[in-house]
């Protein structure tokens, strides 16, 4: 905030003044932005700092933004709490990581394979498929939960991570964004490769795929955040196949004394996707500039 005010005050700013911007307007609007920024960041900062607070500091009011005595007790309590059950906590993490990695990699690959023809060629059935994809963005996956359960059980996939992974791979938002992004690849590039005698598959894997790396990152973060917090739903009932999120829910059902442990797990669950986003933000935003709909 101070930086903005300094910016506004500096003469350099005045010299390079942008068109149609009044200074009072700037200040008011940025105050609003700062206020909501605090609202947005406060719970996340509290989650992070609570994970490292001893229990007595957790319930101080006003809450301390940063812990006075940094402690790893919460993480220790967490592992104790869960190792008391007959499944070690690492097992839950392994399950989550496996579901997330397989689902994300599969989604990027399979959705891109489908997006390329949709973006670059005209052939019978193309419009039908893309229209279905756009319409499927208009209803939430919960709508199809019941029939999905029946399909999964008929395929014999109940209590198998594939029951979570396969539907996630077919997520339509990723395909939609990838197709929109691929449309901006110049046709000449593909034609050139064809003249050089490259096969369609080679063109896709060696020319198109490297060019759409920004879109990969977007598809990864979208699917990652969805799979990372999956609790297995009604698809997975064996304790040793359950993901972390399920274990967290069991702990969270305890009352307020568990606040420290909850914060510890929340912190672990939060830090991974957020870190990923920090490093890939520019590329992800680039992908979304092609997200427009007609």
């Amino acid at each position: 905030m101070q930086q903005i005010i300094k910016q506004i005050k500096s003469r350099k700013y005045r010299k390079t003044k942008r068109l149609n911007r009044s200074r009072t307007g700037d200040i008011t609007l940025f105050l609003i932005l700062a206020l909501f920024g605090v609202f947005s960041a406060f719970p996340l900062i509290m989650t992070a700092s609570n994970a490292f607070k001893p229990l007595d500091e957790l319930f101080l009011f006003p809450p301390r933004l940063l812990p006075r005595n940094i402690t790893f007790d919460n993480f220790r309590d967490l592992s104790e709490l869960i190792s008391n059950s007959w499944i070690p906590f690492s097992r839950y993490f392994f399950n989550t990581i496996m579901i997330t990695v397989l689902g994300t990699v599969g989604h990027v690959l399979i959705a891109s394979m489908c997006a390329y023809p949709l973006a670059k060629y005209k052939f019978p059935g193309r419009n039908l498929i893309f229209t279905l994809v756009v319409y499927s963005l208009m209803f939430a996956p919960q709508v199809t939960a019941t029939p999905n359960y029946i399909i999964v059980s008929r395929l014999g996939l109940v209590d198998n991570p594939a029951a979570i992974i396969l539907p996630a791979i077919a997520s339509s938002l990723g395909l939609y964004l990838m197709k929109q992004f691929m449309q901006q690849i110049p046709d000449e590039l593909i034609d050139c490769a064809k003249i050089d005698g490259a096969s369609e598959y080679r063109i896709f894997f060696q020319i198109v795929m490297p060019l759409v790396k920004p879109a990969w990152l977007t598809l990864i973060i979208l699917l990652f955040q969805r799979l990372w917090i999956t609790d297995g739903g009604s698809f997975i009932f064996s304790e040793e196949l359950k993901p972390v999120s399920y274990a967290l829910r069991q702990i969270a059902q305890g009352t307020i004394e568990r606040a420290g442990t909850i914060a510890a797990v929340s912190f672990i669950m939060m830090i991974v996707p957020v870190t990923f986003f920090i490093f890939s933000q520019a590329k992800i935003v680039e992908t979304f500039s092609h997200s427009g709909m007609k």
Partner: protein
Amino acid sequence: MEAKLNMKTKRKFLWKEIKKNKHNYILMAPYVILFMTFTIVPVFMSLGISFTYYNLLESPRFIGLDNYTNLLLNDDVFVIAIKNTLILAVVTGPVSYMLAFVFAWLINELKPKLRAFMTLIFYAPSISGNAFLIWLLIFSGDVHGYANAFLLKMGIVDNPILWLKDPTYMLGVIILVQLWLSLGVSFLAFIAGLQSVDKTLYEAGAIDGIRNRWQELWFITLPSMKPQLLFGAVMQITTSLAIAEVSMQLVGFPSIQYAGHTIVTHLIDYGSTRFNLGYASAIATLLFIIMMSANLFVRSILRKVGE
């Protein structure tokens, strides 16, 4: 005779086209098979099952419109669920849509480094997994909850408020948390859209007599971002009508007096808890109709912006 011949050549031509595009179909096959299996077929299955009594153990029994009549006429809880869903959607949908746009618009004026930082701050809640559980601590019903501690200290209340157990406050808390979580995909789309608006349009606008940022927003920025605005609307509408997770985790499932009950939690109740799949499918089909019509309606309005 001629028409018949035409049909024949047409079919031949189509077959030729399909053969020529063989590689395209092969590339698309894995996705299309999964997409059909888990997204398109289930919509029709749901419609079919909604006319039956089905509990997964016995084979489905056709019962006509019974599920729908029960749902709409005899199920008091469903009425509450619809009411709550509509309140949540009507508040969180448009508000989050506008917030996403306004913040993206303000952030767009910042220097790149600060812009990246603010984008992270607003987007982070939506990808932070279970971090919204911190709101359990903020709205905890005892004197230790941050909200209560604050109000008690300020002398605004004498007794701690049971935020998550008192039906008067439950919907409000869900709305607040849902808004906090809602700057997601559409927010990113708006940021990207604003960055790709042609800068020369602004200079031209200034010469043509645009005097302030509001005029600029209305006459230049919004019309140039129409595709992103449409995309964002679809995302926001779909999410706001499907609120369930936040409600279940914060106020419980089922919630006290069903004050946090939504169409989706009702669906989960019948589908996953009671295994009355026919009834759950009827709920799902109604939800599908509500979501599609809300989307198509808003889309037809937004398409007219600036025309």
